[in-house]
Structures are given as structure tokens and as C-alpha cells.
């Protein structure tokens, strides 16, 4: 008997715009110990089908069809009978571990209440059982965590707590809804390993909902590709990846940038130095201590980064959350004042410019941000947003000339002329990001910084935006600083790649060198953690694991994580030096750890 058997499931939502069918007649089964992948882009209905099965739809939603858990019909059962299954026979983990735990309750309270409603454990038994599970998901200092609040734990740690909580009653089915999407790659790798271990040890069936073909390749036995509420393709993972029969599956696979792909290298005729950053530091004061006397220590967000950027070149900056990549980008163009260091831009020192001169210089220094919707003024039409830099830097233009320039730019970035008078909320994320790019491009700047510009977008949209950036670069010859946490995306677009760890460069070189021949253990770990959308390759790859999670930049020892010999010899303030291992390939000093 299948653990979960879904037949002809449909989900409708009653909205003010009429009835929306978000899931249209889908059927699938999950067997004991199996991992089923449901893959699709946002809005495809993959999450809604599982929420419907568990009776967790929003109030305006309704579901029809049949859902059997272990042979027992559960769809549209009364809440009281569903409550006996939720948390006991079915565990669920969700995408965003930062908001998925109740902020004012201690971890221990949140975990023990599950046992309280489903089992007859005594108080101390329940606590012991929770502690046991926290240790099984490899949370360091598990005992201490029981008495901590969620905000005291990192994102990866919170997701482990979620997994431990979902597994407390040894459920038959674990529903994991984008469990690693909000996490860094190295943390993602560990969380995924953990889930597959549990699946093997406990024989738990796993439903893995994801948009990431790489994650599917690593984890799943069977895969369902979902689009617009329907399954378009299904089958064992190997055959779907080898022989995708549906056009949409092929598209998804093609759109995924791959870390193991090779790209033709752009040939640069005469490298023309554009930007030269020297020893950039950004320190934020951070309050510690706290009773009557608190003192502030510098939090070293960016700590001595130097690099150059040539005309027409793309430099990728990668690193995990908190490594200072966005802070560095903002400090370069003085959206945040750097604490020290010089930025030489076309021979001028940007950090010395006064306010007016800096405003003038900004014409050539543009930036595109991560959240395409939030970074546009909601009260301005998109053409007004695109035209704004023209009003600032070319006030002599007549409104007609301005309109023509805006039209032309919209055309180039692939926005239809009919959209001129639309507002950001009327456009999709991908379209809004095109507006952001058009706004940045309108004055034909010499440098565009893309700060996680494609991270919030679906894979296929992401591929289109990357294509667009490459096309515009070929046309206008601007340089790009491309910041992302996603190494495969950075590799796809960059000529050179810089890897940051806690505000310092650990490796810098051509993208092929860094990605195929990583010399620093941190880069090696990052690369080996990126899932490759090819099940055979992905499962045979050896993974390089780092022992602990990204440590706090307030801990001076964290900076020497890859050079423990200096900690042993008590040189806490030692700054690892960069050395050139091959022409143009720089690596920070490190011991042979890992």
C-alpha cells in the first residue's frame, strides 16, 4: 500500500477576480522509503497540492478528489481528525526557516508540544526525546538550544530544528516544501544529506517540493514535473533527466546554469583599467556587553579587499550570506561610506569626491538590486522610473526626446511598448527586473553592479535575464560586477570570479580556473556543494564538507578558519596573504584543512 495516494486532486481559490484553478486533476503515489520530487516554477501549484491534502489551504481555497494516507481517506476531513495525523503521521518542513518558528517560544517548548498533543510522554521523557532528535540532526550544543529562542539560531540551524520537530513522532511521510531554498549552498548540502539519511534509516517517505533540478537529481527516486497546475512529465529520475520528453522539462534543464559547464572565453583586445579598488574596509560598530556599561566593537563586514576591473569585463563576486559581498558593492559606489580604502575610477579617487562630483560620477555607476518589486517606486509608472536618470543627468532633453529614449530602452530590454504606463504591481518579477535594468542602462553607464539581481527569479526567467545582460554588454560594452550566492550563475556570466569569506578574498581568478581548479578549501567546498542537474554525476561526486557553519564575524578566530596554524601559534590578528598560483589566479594563504 502506498503511503500517500492522491487521485484526481483539484484545488480552486475563490478570489475577487473569479475562481482560480491552481491544481488541475493531478494523481500520484508515494511508496514507503521513497523520495518523490515535485518540481516546477512559482505558481505551478506544487505547494498548494500538499497544503490541500493536509487541509491547510487558505480559507478561500477548496479541494476535490481523493487523498489517502495509508489507505485512509483524509481529503476534506474535519480538522479534529486531521489534527491526529498532522505532526504524527505526516511531518512538514517549509521554505523559510527564519519565519517558520514561533518567535516568542523557546525551541524546547515548541518541540515538546508536538509530543504533548500526540503521545503520552511525561514531561522529562518528552524533553529527552527532543534532545535526542536535536542531536540526530547534528545540532551542536543541543542541550543549550532547547532553552534558546529561534532568533538566537542561524537559518541552517533553524531548519534542522524544523526537521527534528517534524521527525519527532517518526512520521510515515515527510513533506519538505522548498526546504533549502533560503539556505546557503554548503548548508543546503548538509540539510539535504540529513533528509536522505532519515529517509534511509527510518524508512520515511519523502515528498520534496522544489524548483531546483539539481536538488531533484541529488535526492529523488521519482520525479513529477508540474506546470500551471498539471503534471507535464513523470518518471524515474534517471530517465527523466536523460530523456526529457516534454518540452517544458527540457527547457527547465537547459535554463539551469551548470557549474560543470564550459563556456567560450571572451577575448579582450586591450584591457583598459576602469576601476581599481585598494584595501576596502567597511566596519560597523556593534554593541556588546550591555548592562550599565556597553562597549562597541567593530564588526568587520569587509576587511581589506583589493581588485581591479577592466572595461567590458564581468567580475563575479560569490560568497555565502554574511560574507560582505553586498556591503562591498555598496561601499564601492559609496551607498555605504567605506571605513577606509581607495576606489580609483577612471583615474579619479571616488572616496575623495564631494557630494556634487559624486552625483555626477553616479551617472556611470549604476546598480540593479535583488528584489525587483521593492526597488521600484510603487507610485511611479515604469516609464517614469526608467526616465528618472534622464531627468537628473540630461535635463536639456525635451519630453519627446526623453520618451523616445525610454521607448528604445524598453524595446532593448524586451518590455512591450504597451506597458509604458503600467505600475510595478501590474508586472511580474521578471518584467520588473527588466525595468530595473532599463533604468540602470538608460544613460549607458560604464559599470553596472548586479546585486543578487536574478536570485529572486524562477530559473527560466533567470536564464532570460542573464541572456539579456550578456546581450546588452555586447552592445554597449559596459562592465559588470555580478554579485550572487549562486556559484553556477556567477560562472555562467563572469569572466573572472572573486570568492569572499567573512569580508576577505579567499580566491580570485578567471571563472574557468576558479570553478574547475579551485585552490582554496573554501572554494572547493562551495563548488562541491552546488548540486548538478545530472543524477548519475551528482550521486557519484565526492563532497567536500566543512566542519562547521559560517562563523560569526565578531569572533576573531573565525577569520583564520582555514589557517588554524596561526591560531595555534597565537597570531589571532594575522591576515592571510594572497599569492598568485597561476597567472591571474590568486589564492589566500591556507593550511591543508578539510
Amino acid at each position, binding site marked *: 500500500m502506498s503511503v500517500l495516494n492522491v487521485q484526481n486532486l483539484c484545488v480552486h481559490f475563490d478570489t475577487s477576480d473569479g475562481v482560480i484553478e491552481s491544481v488541475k486533476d493531478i494523481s500520484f503515489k508515494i511508496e514507503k522509503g521513497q523520495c518523490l520530487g515535485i518540481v516546477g516554477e512559482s505558481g505551478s501549484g506544487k505547494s498548494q497540492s500538499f497544503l490541500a491534502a493536509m487541509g491547510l489551504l487558505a480559507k478561500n481555497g477548496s479541494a476535490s478528489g481523493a487523498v489517502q494516507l495509508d489507505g485512509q481517506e483524509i481529503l476534506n476531513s474535519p480538522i479534529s481528525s486531521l489534527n491526529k495525523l*498532522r*505532526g*504524527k503521521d505526516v511531518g512538514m518542513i517549509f521554505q523559510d526557516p527564519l519565519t517558520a*518558528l*514561533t518567535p516568542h517560544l523557546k525551541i524546547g517548548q515548541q518541540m515538546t*508540544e*508536538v509530543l504533548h498533543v500526540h503521545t503520552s510522554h511525561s514531561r522529562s521523557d518528552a524533553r529527552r526525546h527532543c534532545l535526542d532528535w536535536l542531536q540526530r540532526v547534528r545540532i551542536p550544543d543541543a542541550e543549550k538550544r532547547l532553552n534558546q529562542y529561534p532568533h538566537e539560531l542561524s537559518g541552517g540551524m533553524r531548519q534542522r530544528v*524544523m526537521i527534528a520537530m517534524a521527525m519527532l513522532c517518526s512520521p510515515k511521510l515527510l513533506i519538505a516544501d522548498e526546504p533549502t531554498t533560503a539556505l546557503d549552498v554548503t548548508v543546503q548540502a548538509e540539510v539535504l544529506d540529513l533528509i536522505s539519511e532519515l529517509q534511509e534509516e527510518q524508512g520515511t517517505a519523502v515528498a520534496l517540493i522544489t524548483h531546483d533540478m539539481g536538488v531533484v537529481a541529488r535526492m529523488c527516486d521519482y520525479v513529477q514535473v508540474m506546470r500551471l497546475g498539471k503534471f507535464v512529465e513523470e518518471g524515474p529520475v534517471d530517465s527523466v533527466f536523460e530523456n526529457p520528453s516534454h518540452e517544458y522539462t527540457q527547457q527547465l534543464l537547459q535554463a539551469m546554469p551548470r557549474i560543470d559547464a564550459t563556456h567560450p572565453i571572451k577575448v579582450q583586445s586591450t584591457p583598459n583599467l576602469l576601476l581599481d579598488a585598494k584595501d576596502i574596509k567597511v566596519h560597523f560598530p556593534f554593541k556588546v556587553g*550591555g548592562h*550599565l556599561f556597553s562597549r562597541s566593537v567593530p564588526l568587520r563586514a569587509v576587511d581589506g579587499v583589493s581588485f581591479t576591473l577592466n572595461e567590458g569585463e564581468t567580475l563575479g563576486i560569490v560568497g555565502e550570506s554574511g560574507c560582505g559581498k553586498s556591503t562591498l558593492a555598496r561601499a564601492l559606489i559609496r551607498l555605504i561610506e567605506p571605513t577606509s580604502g581607495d576606489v580609483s575610477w577612471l583615474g579619479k579617487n571616488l572616496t575623495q569626491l564631494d557630494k556634487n562630483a559624486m552625483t555626477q560620477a553616479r551617472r556611470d555607476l549604476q546598480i540593479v538590486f535583488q528584489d525587483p518589486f521593492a526597488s521600484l517606486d510603487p507610485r511611479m509608472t515604469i516609464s517614469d522610473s526608467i526616465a528618472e536618470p534622464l531627468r537628473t543627468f540630461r535635463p536639456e532633453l525635451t519630453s519627446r526626446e526623453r520618451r523616445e529614449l525610454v521607448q528604445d530602452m524598453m524595446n532593448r530590454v524586451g518590455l512591450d511598448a504597451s506597458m509604458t504606463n503600467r505600475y510595478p504591481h501590474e508586472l511580474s518579477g521578471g518584467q520588473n527586473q527588466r525595468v530595473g535594468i532599463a533604468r540602470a542602462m538608460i544613460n549607458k553607464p560604464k559599470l553596472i553592479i548586479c546585486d543578487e539581481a536574478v536570485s529572486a527569479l524562477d530559473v527560466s526567467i533567470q536564464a532570460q535575464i542573464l541572456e539579456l545582460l550578456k546581450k546588452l554588454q555586447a552592445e554597449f560594452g559596459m562592465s559588470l560586477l555580478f554579485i550572487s550566492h549562486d556559484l553556477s550563475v556567477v560562472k555562467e556570466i563572469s569572466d573572472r570570479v572573486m570568492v569572499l569569506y567573512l569580508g576577505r578574498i579567499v580566491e580570485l581568478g578567471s571563472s574557468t580556473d576558479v570553478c574547475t581548479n579551485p585552490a582554496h578549501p573554501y572554494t572547493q567546498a562551495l563548488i562541491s556543494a552546488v548540486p548538478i542537474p545530472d543524477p548519475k554525476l551528482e550521486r557519484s561526486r565526492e563532497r567536500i564538507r566543512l566542519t562547521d557553519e559560517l562563523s560569526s564575524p565578531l569572533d576573531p578566530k573565525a577569520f583564520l578558519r582555514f589557517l588554524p596554524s596561526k591560531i595555534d601559534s597565537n597570531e589571532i590578528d594575522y591576515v592571510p596573504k594572497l599569492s598568485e598560483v597561476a597567472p591571474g589566479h590568486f589564492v589566500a594563504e591556507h593550511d591543508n584543512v578539510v
Partner: protein
Amino acid sequence: MGPLLVLAMLSYTIRRLLVAIPTILLLIVACFFLMHVAPGGPFTSERPLPEAVLANIEARYGLDQPLWKQLWDYLTNIVVHFDFGPSFKFKDRDVNDIIAHGFPISLTYGFLAFLAASIVGIALGVAAAIRHNTWIDYFAVCLGVAAQALPNFIMGPILILTFTLWLGLLPGGGWNGGQWQYLVMPVIALSTSYMGSIARITRSSMLEILHSNFIRTARAKGLPEYLIIWRHALKPTLLPVISYLGPVFVYVLTGSVFVDIYFSTGGLGQSYVSSALSRDYAVLLGVTILYGALTVIVNLLTDLAYAWFDPKIRY
């Protein structure tokens, strides 16, 4: 709470109270000069007093001294003797007397009104949010809006008309040592409009919380609905309510002039307003300082309550 946290809270409280001292001093100085800038004085009237008499009276109350000297005497009297001076209007009563008589009355019905407004308001708001878009919700929203639309100077006469004149159930005014019959109408009149606002804030806050991810997690754990509301949703729901409750607590004590007039309760609100109109400098300043100190303390309590409701807030 661990002992470390209690220590942190204690030291925070001490720091805040230390800051309160210059704040209240500044308040006194500002009020003192503002009062004297206003035209007229406590002894000006339509029928002017003979000049010699006026000079005599002013000398008796020290009003002939330069302003800075008056301020200095006033301050030293407070600090050394805790004496806020004599009333200029009511002979044989000093400010300490007036406050000691009026404040307990204001405090009693004000505090009861505060309790009624918060308990009923929060309960109404929570009920409306849980039963969103049902008749309970509509009823609570209507009640909330109606309560908010009726200011206490309208509620007062309506209540007297209904309960005293038509039904004859309750006495129309007076205090009588604070017997419950005398408390009912002042408390209702004072609390309703705040009750309406509290219900509205609670409702929208609870609706937002019920849609958040951690409530979905709680549902996915199979917790019964009452536990989800009580243990997971209530505390975060009340955060915005608390920031509203702090000022309300001070308002219900200061805003009671209408209650004092309609129900002849004899609270401090009436003395406050009449002292301002008649330039009774000492009473006005005394009551202002009292309310200033109260505001400082309530703000501190609000901030401490935040820390209890949200573990992310630490001082």
C-alpha cells in the same frame, strides 16, 4: 527569565529612571515659564483689586520676586520638603491636599476604565479575527466603530439619561467613597472609545499573525486551534496593542475632566482644567509634574512589557 536577564532589566530600569530626573526638571522649567508668559495672573479679575492690596497678596505668595527666584524657591521646596506650595485660589488648601484628594479618585475610575477597555477590546478583537468574515466579526467591527465614534462627553449624558433618568438604576453623580454604583457610569463613559480602538488594532494584528508562517507550522504540528491562538498567536498579536495601551493609560487619567464634570466625581481632571483657566500656578504645576512622572513610568513599563512579549527585544 534567567538571572542575567533580570539583572539586565534591572539595570535598564535604573538607567531609565535616572534619565527621568532631568526630563521632569525640564518639564517643570518649561511649564513654569510658559505659565508666566500667558497674560493675567491668579489675582487678576474683572473688578481690579486696589493696588496696595494686590501688592500685599502678591508679596504673601512670593509673586513679587523675580521669576528665577520664584522657580528656585519652588524647586527647593519640592526637593527639601516635598511641598508643592499653597493653592492661589483655594485658601487653606495646598497642592499636596488637592492631589491627595483628587488623584485616588481619578486613579480608581481611570484604572478600572483602562482594564475594561483593554480586556473587552482585546477579547472583541481576537474573536473578530478568529471568526473573520462571519457575523461575530461584523458585530465586533460595528461595535468597535460605534464605540469609537462616541466620545466620552457624548457618552456621559446618554448614560445619565438612560440609567438615571429613565431606568432609575444608578445614581446620577457623586463619588461616595467609590461605591460600585457610583463607578459604573464613569468607567463606561471613559472606556468605550478606547475599547473600540483596541478592538480594531487587535483584530487587524491578529489577522496578520494568523497568516504568518509560524502559525502554519503550528497547524502542521496538529495543535488544536485554541492552543494555536493562546500559545502561538496571542503574544505577537498584542505587540502593537501594547504600544497603544501605554499612552491610553495616561490619557484615561488626564482625559477625565468630562467625567468629573458630568458625574461630579471630584477627580483631578476638573482641578487641572480649572487651575489652568484661573492661573492657579501651583496647582497647575503640581498636577503637570504628577502626570509627567506618570508618563515616564508608564513608558518604562511599556518598554519592559515589550521585552516580555518579544524575546528579540533586549535592552
